[in-house]
């Protein structure tokens, strides 16, 4: 049996949903409400002691960390391969996945949290938020949530995140100039991993990422987004992150790895 604990199908949480869909693997979906801190409850910490989503449970074996989880899913299940056969293309797949994890993802997430989650947290009582902070199991997650709850993002760090998004858009546009997919000739986990972050770029940087300035990146986003597996994953959204007066701040992740 395959069970997946996840929140909205974006950022790291979207990756395994899309990967399982691409492989045609049915799974039991467990929604973890990050905005109400369900990820830090004893019940969830029993599944994943780090209090992060997504978590895959395959015949009782707990698989965490969405990027290695993607390779696990590709290896453990039948269905179309999502890793290139050629070892250089595989190296490229892993390099782009790491870029999403360490460069694009954190920058996007910092902006997403400061814009999207800060206002949602203001609706909660200080006592509730203080209790929620105390329950966070790891120092890095406590730092992130404390910053969001108290809105202590600094302008230089937000500016650095915007700069990195611009650099990321440029790198992606250049990579897609000569090849249809990020790793090369075939669609791979790199496309899934980067798509989950980069899908938010036109929303965050509309003057830098659009069909005029980055036509290949936009075309690739549309091409990935139109795949049935991706569409089915996105249809699981409950719009938890959509503010009452605007589009959803895409690319928000919590404690997601």
């Amino acid at each position: 049996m395959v069970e997946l604990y996840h929140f909205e199908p974006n950022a790291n949480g979207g990756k395994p949903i899309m990967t399982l869909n691409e492989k045609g693997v049915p799974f039991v979906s467990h929604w973890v409400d990050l905005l109400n801190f369900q990820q830090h409850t004893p019940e969830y910490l029993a599944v994943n002691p780090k209090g992060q989503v997504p978590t895959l449970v395959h015949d009782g074996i707990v698989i965490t960390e969405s990027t290695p989880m993607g390779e696990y899913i590709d290896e453990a299940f039948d269905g179309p391969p999502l890793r290139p056969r050629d070892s250089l293309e595989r190296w490229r797949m892993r390099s782009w996945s790491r870029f999403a994890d360490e460069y694009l993802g954190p920058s996007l997430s910092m902006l997403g949290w400061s814009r999207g989650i800060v206002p949602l947290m203001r609706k909660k009582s200080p006592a509730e938020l203080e209790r929620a902070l105390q329950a966070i199991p790891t120092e890095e997650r406590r730092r992130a949530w404390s910053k969001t709850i108290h809105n202590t993002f600094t302008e230089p760090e937000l500016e650095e995140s915007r700069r990195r998004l611009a650099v990321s858009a440029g790198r992606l546009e250049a990579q897609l100039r000569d090849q249809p997919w990020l790793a090369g000739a075939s669609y791979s986990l790199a496309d899934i991993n980067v798509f989950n972050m980069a899908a938010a770029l036109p929303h965050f940087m509309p003057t830098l990422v659009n069909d005029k300035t980055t036509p290949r990146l936009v075309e690739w986003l549309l091409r990935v987004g139109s795949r049935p597996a991706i569409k089915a994953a996105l249809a699981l959204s409950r719009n938890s992150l959509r503010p009452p007066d605007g589009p959803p701040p895409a690319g928000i992740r919590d404690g997601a790895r």
Partner: protein
Amino acid sequence: MLELYHSWPSGHSAIALIALHEKGLRFASRFVELRSLEQYSAQFLAVNPHGQVPVLRHAAASITGTTAMLEYLEDTFPAPALMPADAVGRWRVRVWGKILNEDIAPSVSLLAWHRWTLPTLGPDERARLRAQAATIAIEERRYQWLLALDEVDLADRCQYATYKLDTAISRVEAALAQHPWLSGAHYSLADIYLFPMLVVLPRLLPQTVNARATPWTLAWLNAVRERPAVQSALSFKPVGAVLPADPLQTFMPGAEPIRWG
């Protein structure tokens, strides 16, 4: 032909050297002198625009990023196998790779640089490095070097690095209490990833890594160190290079920790 651009055998360069020796692969060594910031020279940036070592040249491509490089070696030269035969074991290796990249490597290089390497530099050498670092064209690298040389927010950054390493070590100790190698019953890339970083911890963080608190980790360090390929890699002498007095313990400012999330 394989070529490896690398520095002295510590940290990430040691990881690449150990993997090549374990695979029994012949390679041409290209030494990069990090102490004169040769990694940011135009010649080296043509090999790796990110200005980082090690870089493997193979099939007319530059293979960068140590964890992805070792998987490339495994995919290209499968024997002797350094990845577990089962999918769960391979998943474990990749999780250790992430822990290396995101938690262990930035923290070890931060602490080792400030405690060991920076104090050995005289005022003239610091001034020279400071002037040179200000000209690094890669924004993130320049920023890291200036933080490292000016010791900005040092106490806070060292405290966070220590927390990260304490957390990582407790995972290492727990894994090694279960099985002899990090990913299970067999030596694998995971052991190669972590050894060059963790081998300095009995000296760098003696309150965390010691015979009483982490007996399994110490036994594992000895087991890895005894492997012939590891010994050859650590004693590898690049032609024409002047090595630091204690190569394994000499670290330069490394990759930044993950900024957020």
